């Protein structure tokens, strides 16, 4: 445990002593803020229109009330997972590739510490940087809930964030895996980005070509499993998909490290 902590601390230093973490934070917060503003202002506009209609037209009740979850929350969390396509590679590409390039992997490999501890320390640090981003965006979601009178949306906010967290975890673990394959950060980043892009796009196969192929693609697609979270539902099946995805690629990274040792 102490070993994981040692690696974790060093990684966190390295994120925050370089401009990397700050650049990613600005990038992420700026984009989410813009989209949040757009979604929230359209929600407010619709709500106002709805109220006006209610005043002039009695019995207008057949029209549904503008839904905060659908209009704001699902919108913004979908945007977040899309931005993650760019953030995750940048966050994870250096993790092992840089150590290989610098040769410091040789130090780590000869210290009395297990490979899994190295990997977990690094994974947790990337996740911490990522969670930091989510927590900051949490602020404007919470602020918007002040304006929205109905507090019943809070559980949906929680599950949405859980979903975004799980997607991030899956992406980062994939990024670590890609980073373990090469000593070139850019290559690692590109592998991650391209692969995640494919996993995102195959979610559309279902729309073009419904049937078994569409179903299979939908189940592999990292995004198809996300929708339910935005509706305020925690489906253990979907949650398990992300957790297993994370474990799977962390395990693969471990195997790659081990094979590097043999070949080193």
């Amino acid at each position, binding site marked *: 445990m102490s*070993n994981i902590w040692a690696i974790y601390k060093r990684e966190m230093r390295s994120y925050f002593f370089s401009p990397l973490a700050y650049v990613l934070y600005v990038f992420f917060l700026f984009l989410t803020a813009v989209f949040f503003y757009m979604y929230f202002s359209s929600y407010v506009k619709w709500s106002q229109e709805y109220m006006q209609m209610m005043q002039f037209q009695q019995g207008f009740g057949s029209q549904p009330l503008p839904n905060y979850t659908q209009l704001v929350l699902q919108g913004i969390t979908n945007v977040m997972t899309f931005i993650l396509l760019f953030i995750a590679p940048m966050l994870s590409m250096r993790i092992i590739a840089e150590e290989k390039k610098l040769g410091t992997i040789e130090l780590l490999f000869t210290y*009395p510490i297990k490979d899994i501890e190295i990997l977990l320390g690094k994974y947790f640090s990337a996740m911490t940087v990522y969670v930091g981003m989510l927590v900051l965006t949490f602020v404007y979601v919470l602020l918007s809930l002040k304006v929205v009178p109905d507090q019943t949306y809070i559980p949906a906010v929680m599950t949405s964030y859980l979903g975004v967290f799980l997607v991030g975890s899956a992406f980062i673990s994939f990024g670590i895996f890609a980073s373990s394959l090469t000593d070139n950060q850019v290559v690692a980043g590109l592998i991650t980005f391209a692969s995640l892009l494919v996993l995102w796009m195959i979610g559309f196969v279902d729309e073009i070509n419904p049937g078994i192929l569409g179903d299979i693609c939908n189940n592999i697609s990292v995004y198809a499993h996300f929708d339910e979270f935005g509706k305020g539902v925690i489906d253990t099946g979907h949650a398990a998909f992300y957790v297993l995805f994370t474990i799977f690629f962390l395990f693969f990274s471990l195997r790659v490290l081990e094979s590097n040792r043999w070949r080193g």
Partner: protein
Amino acid sequence: MIVAENIKKTYGRVTAIEDVSFEVAEGEILGFLGPNGAGKTTTMRILTGYSPPSAGTATVAGFDIRENSLEVRRNIGYLPENTPLYNDMDVVGFLGFVAHVKGISSGDRAAQIREAMSESGITDVASRTIGKLSKGYRQRVGLAQALIGNPKVLILDEPTVGLDPNQIRDIRELIKNMAGKRTVILSTHILPEVSMICDRVLIINEGRIVAADAVGELSQRLSTQLKIRLMVKAPASDIAPALQELSGIQKINCTDMQSGVCQVILDTERSKDLRPDLSNRIVGKGWDLLEIRSMDPTLEDIFIEIIAGEKEVH
């Protein structure tokens, strides 16, 4: 302290080292000598637990490198080739990280770091960023990193490569001082370094150990010849016939130098010291003997001899 038995390492079809066996006693300084690509780094990486051997095994401080890699690593301080370091960290921060990873309790860390820094002479750059240090200081930080945790064994891969002559001298001095109670293995392709620092030398060529001995003995054991160099004030044409009569001389090589001085290089049998006979003979002839000196073969000579011999065998 270290026992290696028939270590073999293959990368795909390429055999990097084969049948490497040796022992290192406690407190000894062993030099790994060999041309680039001979398998020095591979051997060291196996001992340090970086890479497992394809066959054979080794024990370090009583722990098997296959069964007990973590314990082995706890007993080894390793300085890899080219001194990889985290360039974005400051020296103290880096050593703090190393102490943490090596499992030193937080109470002892500060003292250990201070000790390692003073032993490797980097106390005055403690708060500097590693990436901005000179190569000599980087090397010292690498040594300090290896010293943390008080390992019984130090393994140093080409510790003096790329340094200027002053830095090389300082690092050699440091390594000698560090040795004392520790067992040290260092690799190099610079021959004088071995005779300067090491007690014993292991010559590796093309993945095999071709010679292993104490530094002084190696030169004696491997060479049956002894070269003697004379400076005599007499013409070369007179000297050669006069010395030829002495028994035990295998080859005479006379060259006239400036102002009537002749340099004579004799190949003689090592078992018989010819110097008294030579001086008597020359003085008897009425010549001035300016200099007489036996020339022990340098490690360079031995190295080339061994490697050439290897080539003939294969």
